[in-house]
């Protein structure tokens, strides 16, 4: 029984019928509801890409008081030129082909400079006859997702970088350990071999002494033996140098003076080989905490290599300068090598020759102990290994490469300690 005057509770069937009526879209209620409340941006445009209708969410984001204010406007009134042109091109394409553009990710640059990202779907707007009379679209703000993706990309890239750093550190560590082992073995061998060498040397001296009237052949043989013994001793001394370069006597040093001292030691050879010597030393360099004797040894080794690279003459250049680093250098040396950071004051020494240069396959091995390209008996293969070790112990950096104009260049870098 129904009581008159009381509102009648709607039955399930009534409500279904009402929804079906609404769903038929006769009064546009559903569509209006969708447009009013959806947070996505919805718009309709005519063939000239002028807005016919936008929803409140889009009106809000473009700063309009009401959606009606957008009517007649184009993207050029709202977005930057660049963005508006791209959107226009897309819409022209849809008008021409009737093919929708689905899920395109777009960067929106707003006149105030802010950037947002949207995923946008645009379709042709057709009238009842099926003619294309405009376009319509829906776009969703994905700026947060985009930022998260970028952060993730950055994190992945950092992760790769960390992995590479770790790999490189591992390799350096392995290398340093190998070098330490070589050093320890070298010291042991050197000591053991020097005793028999001592016996040989003194026995040869004795033979020379006791046989004053030697025939020339015997004399030659004895001399060869003496030279061979002295050569073996030189190798052993090199090994000891390599294994014993740990103890530094650091003092404030003028690196130009050390270069001059080292040059004085090889000047005779420089002249012999008709090498033009260019000392381009910057005045008033900051003093460096160095073991003067060891760094002189480094320079003598480097000069000697440069001289040997130019048997028929050439130009040997030694250059110094102070520089403030504008970027941090990644440590690619051994474990002992120091880090160089942006803002550090450094002194750079360059030693260049105009010889043949170094074949690329050899470049990566030149600091390995016992690696030599010199003829048997001419080099111990320890010169550059010792140089590298001494520079590492000074927390310096050393690089050897080929100059584009020919010849090799060695570059050393030391950190200056500022007061």
């Amino acid at each position, binding site marked *: 029984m129904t009581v008159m005057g009381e509102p009648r509770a709607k039955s399930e069937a009534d409500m279904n019928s009402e929804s079906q009526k609404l769903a038929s879209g006769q009064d546009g209620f559903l569509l209006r509801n969708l447009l009013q409340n959806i947070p996505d941006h919805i718009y309709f445009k005519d063939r000239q890409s002028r807005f016919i209708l936008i929803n409140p969410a889009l009106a809000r984001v473009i700063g309009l008081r009401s959606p009606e204010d957008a009517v007649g406007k184009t993207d050029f009134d709202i977005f930057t030129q660049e963005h508006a042109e791209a959107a226009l091109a897309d819409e022209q394409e849809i008008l021409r082909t009737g093919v929708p553009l689905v899920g395109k990710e777009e960067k929106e640059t707003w006149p105030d400079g802010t950037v947002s990202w949207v995923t946008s779907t645009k379709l042709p707007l057709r009238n009842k006859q099926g003619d294309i009379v405009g376009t319509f679209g829906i776009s969703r703000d994905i700026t947060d997702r985009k930022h998260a993706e970028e952060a993730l990309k950055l994190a992945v890239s950092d992760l790769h970088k960390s992995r590479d750093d770790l790999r490189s550190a591992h390799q350096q560590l392995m290398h340093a350990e190998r070098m330490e082992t070589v050093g320890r073995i070298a010291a042991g061998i050197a*000591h053991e071999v020097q*005793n028999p060498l*001592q*016996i040989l040397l*003194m026995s040869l*001296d*004795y033979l020379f*002494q006791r046989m004053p009237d030697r025939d020339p052949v015997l004399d030659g043989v004895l001399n060869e033996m003496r030279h061979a013994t002295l050569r073996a001793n030189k190798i052993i*001394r090199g090994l000891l140098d390599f294994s014993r370069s740990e103890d530094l006597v650091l003092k404030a040093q003028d690196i130009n003076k050390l270069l001059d001292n080292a040059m004085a030691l090889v000047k005779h050879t420089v002249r012999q080989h008709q090498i033009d010597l260019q000392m381009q030393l910057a005045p008033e360099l900051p003093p460096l905490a160095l073991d003067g*004797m060891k760094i002189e040894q480094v320079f003598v080794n480097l000069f000697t290599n440069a001289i040997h690279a130019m048997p028929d003459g050439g130009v040997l250049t030694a250059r110094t300068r102070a520089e403030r680093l504008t970027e941090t250098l990644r440590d690619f040396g051994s474990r002992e090598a120091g880090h160089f950071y942006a803002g550090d004051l450094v002194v750079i020494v360059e030693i260049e020759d105009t010889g043949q240069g170094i074949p690329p396959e050899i470049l990566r091995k030149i600091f390995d102990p016992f690696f030599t390209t010199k003829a048997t008996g001419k080099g111990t293969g320890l010169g550059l290994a010792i140089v590298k070790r001494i520079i590492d112990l000074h927390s310096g950096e050393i690089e050897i490469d080929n100059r584009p104009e020919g010849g090799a260049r060695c570059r050393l870098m030391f950190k200056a300690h500022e007061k």
Partner: protein
Amino acid sequence: MKKKVLIIDDEAAFTNIVKLTLEGRENYEVCVENKSRQAIATARKFWPDIIILDVVMPDLDGGEVFTQIMADPVLKRIPIIFLTAIVRQNEIDEHDGMIGGSFYIAKPVSADGLIAAIDDHIRS
């Protein structure tokens, strides 16, 4: 009068050639001791003008032999030269021939080098 040189070194081949070399020069009398533990007894018996002492030796090393010599009121006046492969001659030269208050010569040394050092130290 011949200069008396005591060589304490475990390497017999080395001490033999040093003995031959020095005695070949006629003005040296050389005593060799290859067993460092017997060094003090040999020194007391021989009374050298100078002792040439190796550093790395089995049993008693050169440092320990040196300490024993220094502890002996008479032997301690005898000049000692360490002859060793554990230092380089240029390292010794940097310290004017002395390390830790003792005289050093690096192996390998030539016969002339050793004789010059012996003569210098006996004179001084």
